[in-house]
């Protein structure tokens, strides 16, 4: 009997959402929650209009403005007319199709992957999609959350379903405990360094083990967020008491909460469930990580050196590393701690939640950002910002010399004036160090919030374990 065979959490959620399946074809999955934003939705709505289609379940779609919004001077109109038009288009579309929107004037506005959990929209067992590759973030709650393209956004709007090829399952188990100063950001960068940026392609990752169980919900979100950087379609973590406690009382949490919890408790992978691939790591082996290259897999321990491409046996890896070092203006063999930075960005859907800000504030409290460094802190949502201000974190950052901004994606993708100038080197808590990601010619090093904060004070990378 299939029903009695042990199943992974992914399989349980997948099976529960199959609307239709024909042999040899993609599966039609029902989508519980659809999140949209201004950048990847306009063409989808336009497609609906051209075809004379409606949004099937407007109440299952929620919109916010995040990618292309200013993070300062919000009282002024958006300066760039094309950005302004994009925001206005989202507002018009939401109005026309009856979709709830958290706009710039709403304190609950923020980065889509920050506000979903914050509002309690994100719940265990759900299928969640968004026209954004970091949708995997929501998997931290034991949901199946995947990033999609604009045509798929249109498909979900019109049908509330998505056609998906069934991915394989990949268990990444982290036994033991993380050392003091080592964060979930370091854990996920370490994993991507181990498996490579395409190591998870075709898989859904499930993170398991005592090191994962010990993490808070926000730390878990940081891990799931970067699943896509390892190529995985989604990342998930089994829901537990921490998940339930996080959701209880949130605005959109289920009304009959206890019944929901009873149901959520059945989601975890069964004992004996089989994964297509399993990798086991010891969390104690992980040191604070710093990327040196132009993809998140090009990463090293803070207490090591920039690697030498000549020592790499794989030709394509060697070529990538050579191009990366040239772009990053780094020398093979130089120590990571010797790399000097002049910009610091604390923000993005990876690390802009309240715990991230507390962690960074604890490092800079009573200290000053180095003269050579320009630091920015961009909270993930208006709610995070407010909470931080109530705790006095804004004062700590500003006294140290950081800019304290409004919520948005900001310099994570640098669509607006928040960006690096050519040649500027940045310690960033975001998730992508691609060429030019934070501004053309900008040089990005991905790190944890505490590592970014320490680099801001010293003007170069330092091992936070010795702070």
């Amino acid at each position, binding site marked *: 009997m299939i029903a009695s065979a042990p199943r992974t959490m992914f399989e349980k959620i997948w099976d529960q959402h199959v609307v239709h399946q024909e042999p040899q074809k993609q599966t039609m999955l029902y989508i519980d929650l659809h999140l949209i934003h201004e950048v*990847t939705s306009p063409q989808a709505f336009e497609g609906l209009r051209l075809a004379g289609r409606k949004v099937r379940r407007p109440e299952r779609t929620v919109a916010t403005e995040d990618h292309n919004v200013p993070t300062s001077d919000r009282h002024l109109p958006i300066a760039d007319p094309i950005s302004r038009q994009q925001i206005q288009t989202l507002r018009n579309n939401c109005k026309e199709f009856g979709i709830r929107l958290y706009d710039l004037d709403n304190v609950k506005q923020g980065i889509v992957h920050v506000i979903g959990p914050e509002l309690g929209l994100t719940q265990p067992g759900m299928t969640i999609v968004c026209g954004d590759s970091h949708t995997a973030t929501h998997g931290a709650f034991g949901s199946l959350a995947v990033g999609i*393209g604009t045509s798929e956004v249109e498909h979900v709007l019109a049908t509330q379903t998505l056609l998906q090829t069934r991915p394989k399952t990949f268990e990444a188990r982290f036994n033991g405990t993380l050392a003091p100063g080592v964060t979930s950001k370091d854990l996920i960068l370490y994993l991507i360094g181990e498996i490579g940026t395409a190591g998870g392609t075709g898989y859904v990752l499930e993170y398991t083990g005592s090191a994962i169980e010990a993490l808070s919900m926000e730390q878990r979100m940081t891990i799931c967020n970067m699943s896509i950087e390892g190529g995985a379609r989604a990342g998930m973590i089994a829901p537990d008491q921490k998940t339930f406690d996080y959701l209880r009382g949130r605005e959109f949490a289920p009304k009959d909460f206890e019944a929901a919890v009873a149901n959520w408790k059945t989601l975890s992978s069964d004992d004996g469930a089989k994964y297509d691939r399993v990798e086991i790591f010891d969390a104690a082996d992980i040191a604070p990580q710093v990327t040196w290259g132009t*993809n998140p897999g090009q990463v090293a321990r803070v207490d090591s050196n920039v690697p030498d491409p000549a020592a790499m046996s794989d030709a394509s890896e060697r070529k990538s590393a050579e191009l990366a070092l040239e772009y990053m203006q780094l020398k093979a063999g130089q120590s990571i701690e010797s790399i000097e930075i002049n910009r610091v960005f604390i923000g993005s859907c990876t690390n802009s939640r309240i715990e991230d800000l507390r962690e960074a504030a604890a490092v800079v409290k009573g200290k000053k950002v180095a003269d050579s460094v320009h630091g920015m802190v961009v909270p993930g949502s208006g709610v995070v910002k407010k909470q931080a201000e109530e705790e006095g974190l804004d004062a700590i950052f500003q006294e140290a010399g950081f800019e304290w901004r409004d919520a948005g994606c900001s310099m994570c993708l*640098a669509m607006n004036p928040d960006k690096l100038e050519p040649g500027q080197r940045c310690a960033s808590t975001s998730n*992508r160090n*691609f060429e030019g990601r934070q501004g053309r010619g900008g040089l990005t090093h991905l790190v944890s919030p505490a590592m970014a904060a320490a680099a801001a004070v010293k003007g170069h990378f330092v091992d936070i374990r010795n702070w």
Partner: protein
Amino acid sequence: MQSFVKHTGVVAAMDRSNVDTDQIIPKQFLKRIERTGFGEFLFFDWRFHPDGTTNEDFELNRPRFKDASILVARENFGNGSSREHAVWALDDYGFRCVIAESFADIFYNNCSKNGVLPVVLSKDAVNRIHQSVAAEEGYQLTVDLEKLTVSDSDSLSETFEIDSFRRQCFLEGLDHIALTLQHADKIDAYEQSLKSV
């Protein structure tokens, strides 16, 4: 969407792995609300210097690739951001097909919604194509989706795989949404079952 049955065209080679969608279409062009007109921005930061002049060193700027309609790269093409603008840009620039050792998932999906055929070939086959492009100006390939083959006028003849549903959509240029809506009764039934729990 536009159909893809069989295509013969000049091959442009990008001898790089991990070409990410931030490079294919940089973010400053994501503010547009149209689906068209992205071709001129394809690989913008690689094609043009910061002062706006053409970067002659960049592969696609070589005169011999001017009329290319097939792009061959290496591994993990299209990784990173989900932006479908990347596929719109490749399409608008004139590429009908991209050949690589592997693709990132979301990019692969996005291609199949736009009639730009993603073809996965072995490392060896991709190597051979790169060598042929280097050796012969105007080197052409024929990609045949009915026969599932990639061949040149010489000895290269490789087969590739694609799932049968996607293949049918490509061959007939089908609209995925219309296909799904043929099953509206099943979606209705599913939604009914949600209410009853």
